[in-house]
């Protein structure tokens, strides 16, 4: 009896979304956002507005800008950073606030775990979704850059997969931290981390501006590593710094996901 009902449930799961497991989680989120597309759009708008204001507006006041020995427009310097920030935003929303809401209030995962899904499926599925959202933001942002003539090289084709790594890193870490949050107040820490990172991670001015004592702190932040990677690809000057960024982003993202799996086990199965 028990066996047959489990078998039946498996059958139902596999029919509605052939992959089962993590993809069921992604499928759930896609259905959710069909009705909440406005949230989706506003998250994308922020880096675009910054690109127009700081990149284009302030850029008009900055005559020549030298990056890795090449003179580029200031807007072309800011744009890749906003692309990385766009990927970060896309990943952060659904890996922090949304996860907390589902975990504490909607009790979504309690329901999910009553099916053959495991906590690992939940962790992988939610990260996969956050990365997808981040990739959608990035793709559209790249399109904006292309239309504005801010892409300087064919290397930029690799910027999209690069932003997937950015999304992986931020969603992994964001979700891991979210599992430790106790109330909405704790999310002020997310803002406290995101806003300074957005402003100081060599987004609007080069990292060489900093005093060496401060510079190493900046260089350790995930957004800085993301900006370096995406910018080198978009401008077309790729150095070893990009390789360091790739390793850093993958490592941090994977570590985050491992923490999420373990924490969900403790929070939901106990």
């Amino acid at each position: 009896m028990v066996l047959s009902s489990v078998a039946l449930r498996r059958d139902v799961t596999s029919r509605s979304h052939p992959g089962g497991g993590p993809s069921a989680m992604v499928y759930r989120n896609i259905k959710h956002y069909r009705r909440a597309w406005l949230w989706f759009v506003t998250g994308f708008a922020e880096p675009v507005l910054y690109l127009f204001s700081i990149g284009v507006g302030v850029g008009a006041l900055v005559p020549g800008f030298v990056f890795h020995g090449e003179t580029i427009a200031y807007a072309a310097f800011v744009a890749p950073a906003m692309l990385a920030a766009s990927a970060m935003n896309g990943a952060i929303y659904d890996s922090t606030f949304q996860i907390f809401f589902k975990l504490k209030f909607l009790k979504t995962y309690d329901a999910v775990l009553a099916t053959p899904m495991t906590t690992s499926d939940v962790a992988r599925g939610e990260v996969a979704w956050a990365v997808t959202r981040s990739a959608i933001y990035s793709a559209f942002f790249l399109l904006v850059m292309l239309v504005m003539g801010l892409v300087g090289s064919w290397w930029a084709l690799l910027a999209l997969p690069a932003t997937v790594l950015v999304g992986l890193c931020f969603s992994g870490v964001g979700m891991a931290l979210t599992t430790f949050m106790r109330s909405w107040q704790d999310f002020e820490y997310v803002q406290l981390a995101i806003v300074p990172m957005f402003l100081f991670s060599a987004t609007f001015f080069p990292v060489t501006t900093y005093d060496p004592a401060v510079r190493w702190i900046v260089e350790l932040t995930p957004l800085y590593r993301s900006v370096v990677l995406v910018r080198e690809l978009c401008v077309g000057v790729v150095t070893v710094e990009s390789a360091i960024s790739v390793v850093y982003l993958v490592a941090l993202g994977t570590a985050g996901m491992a923490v999420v799996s373990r924490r969900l086990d403790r929070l939901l199965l106990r």
Partner: protein
Amino acid sequence: MFLFSGAFFPVDNLPVGLQVLAWISPLYHGVELARMAALGAWTSPAWLHLGYLAALSAVGVWWSVRRLTRRLVA
């Protein structure tokens, strides 16, 4: 508003359509007043900015009192 009200770059650099929007934004007038006062260079008529801000405040107060009265009293 924060990004396009002349806080980071002159409003004149915006396309004309956006310049009009910047003029409507109260932040633009605040930024102008604060900047002119700080630099001591009165490049545009301050009374115009002050007048606009005062008018907007008056409308705001009148409107909120009216709405609150409707919701809570009448």
